[in-house]
């Protein structure tokens, strides 16, 4: 799985959210009795049927639980709206094939495109082509090279995942002197793994009593998760917390932990798989929480595409149009709120 975020995305996202919050704050404090401020009259997309919109959706091959959930989220969201027709392509990891599929969608003259590129950089050109043809592009997660290639980017926050995982562990261990933490990272070849690790390290810097004593990279697969975790457990006879970047490889990691008969630490996962949610709810193992990289972003991308097609803004925000960039929050799911997130868990 590879979700590609960017620092710019992060910046824009934060800016958009804080601007929104600021605006909301302002509008709510003034003119409480008077007529509504102008911004509240903006036509926001809502559940009511509007102009018919045809959305073209192109994603990579769903060879991973998370990507499969992306497709399902997009489909079910589109079915929810009477005014949306979804043209979905057969997912492909082959750049040339995906370019071909997107060009076909352009030729069909869909109203809006939602694209999760197999490789963001390699598909930039076709994004540009669609934009030039007058078809706005919603770029999902793996970002194009240039903002000219999309009207709106929406995606997850890898740095934020690490940050939130680090803070969660930090708060749990802050009273423990000389606490030791280990990290089971994802595929090291991917930039997103580096960003997650960076976020995690930055968060841990706030807790001088905590030291990261080991880090090994698995490959987002159950098999590699089991293998690397077994080695980590052998290498570290004592530690207090573990952050695992990905719940899929976490299935293997949990298996290794069980096989080694260890339960003397707390574990935090990543991404938000159903099996992880269930383990957190049962609360009978080491897994106590997971930080989200929500596949529901595909549903939101459909919402954004629909709003674009109907020329509306986003409900809850004051602007007349949808934002240029949205970075999703990597919420921490633990026992207290797991029920709420359970339906979003992927297999």
């Amino acid at each position, binding site marked *: 799985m590879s979700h590609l975020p960017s620092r710019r995305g992060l910046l824009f996202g934060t800016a958009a959210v804080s601007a929104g919050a600021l605006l909301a704050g302002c509008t709510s404090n003034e003119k409480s009795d008077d007529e509504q401020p102008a911004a509240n009259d903006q036509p926001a997309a809502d559940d009511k049927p509007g102009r018919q919109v045809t959305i073209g959706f192109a994603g990579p091959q769903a060879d991973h639980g998370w990507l499969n959930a992306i497709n399902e989220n997009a489909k079910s969201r589109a079915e929810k709206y009477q005014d949306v027709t979804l043209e979905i392509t057969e997912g492909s990891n082959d750049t040339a094939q995906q370019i071909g599929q997107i060009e076909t969608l352009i030729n069909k003259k869909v109203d809006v495109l939602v694209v999760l590129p197999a490789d963001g950089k390699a598909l930039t050109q076709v994004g540009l082509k669609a934009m030039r043809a007058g078809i706005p592009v919603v770029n999902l997660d793996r970002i194009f090279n240039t903002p000219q290639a999309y009207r709106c980017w929406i995606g997850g926050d890898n740095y934020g995942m690490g940050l939130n995982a680090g803070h969660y562990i930090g708060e749990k261990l802050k009273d423990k002197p000389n606490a030791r933490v280990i990290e089971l990272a994802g595929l090291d*070849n991917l930039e997103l793994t580096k960003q997650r690790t960076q976020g995690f390290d930055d968060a841990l810097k706030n807790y001088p009593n905590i030291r990261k004593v080991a880090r090994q990279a698995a490959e987002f697969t*159950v*098999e590699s998760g089991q293998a690397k975790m077994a080695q980590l457990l*052998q290498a570290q006879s004592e530690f207090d917390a573990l952050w695992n970047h990905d719940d899929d490889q976490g*299935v293997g990691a949990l*298996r290794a932990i*069980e096989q*080694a*008969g260890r339960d003397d630490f707390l574990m935090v996962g990543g991404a938000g798989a159903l099996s992880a949610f269930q383990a957190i709810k049962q609360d009978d193992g080491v897994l106590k929480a997971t930080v989200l990289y929500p596949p529901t972003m595909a549903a939101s991308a459909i919402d954004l595409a629909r709003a674009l097609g109907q020329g509306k803004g986003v409900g809850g925000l004051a602007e007349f149009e949808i934002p240029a960039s949205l970075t999703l929050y990597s919420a921490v799911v633990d026992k207290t709120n797991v029920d709420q997130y359970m339906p979003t868990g992927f297999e």
Partner: protein
Amino acid sequence: MTQPVSPPRGATDKAPPAGPRPAWSTLVFRADVRTLSLLGVLAALVAIGGITKPDEFLDTRNLQLVLTQASVIGVVTVGMTFVITSGGIDLSVGAIVALASVWATTVATQEYGFGGILFTAVLVGVGCGLVNGLLIAYGGMVPFIATLAMLASARGLALQITDGKTQIVTVDGILDLGERDAYVFGVPPLVLVFAAVTVIGWLVLNRTTFGRRTVAVGGNAEAARLAGIDVRRQRLYLYLLSGLCCGIAAFLLIILSGSGQNTNGNLYELDAIAAAIIGGTLLSGGRGTITGSVLGVLIFTTITNIFALNNLQSDVQQIAKGAIIVAAVLVQRRTASTT
């Protein structure tokens, strides 16, 4: 150093274990020198592990861990050794492991419990091996292409079955086999299977007609045919054997990881080929050593283990792994050529 064994003339089934023939005894001696040099490499690695991490590395649990992790790829490598010895190649092993492991862990299969999972894993492995064998032996396809095609379609089918989802095993009989309680006198069941496959593989390659035919086909297929060996049937059996090993490996992997996933067995083909070649099996065929292959697997697993214990990161690991492969082969060549 390349010396294809001359195809057996007539009496193929009777070869004296330490016979008077000088050619045969040289071969035994040479094989021993190769094996010794591999043992030397392994000993050096153990020394490195013991010096850098004495407490964690020189530990019964770590020995169990290394052997367990070597088991899955080890079983695959034994099958691969036979195929390479016969002058062939099987690029589909990883994909077959993936397909067998997901087919054996679907909800439907899991309802049949332990037996159902074992049966399905082995059957899928053998079935894929059969297709490979038929395509190569009777379809006249080059092994590289036939097994490459199998790699692609088996991975595709595995993806179709799982839909990209991770299939978690809930059958207790399977899960329990991967736990510490199942260890027999401290030996994990997976390691027992690995050991059994190794011993059987060694006996078959070195002490049976089948093994001699395999070597003969790899040394010179035409000469083997003229000597009365049914080369095509031999090839069919060899790919079947490799498929069988993949099926067994898939079953072990299911026990180990408690799940089936279409990404299983990623790049096993390269690991198995590398281990066999480092072990002293000739890529062009005609010479094969099960002992060497198993040592090759153990060397790789030990390297990974030492790296992880010392907390080396992926980039350093990859560089060092490449360097060690080159060093191991060089050491082996030197010792083999000086005798």
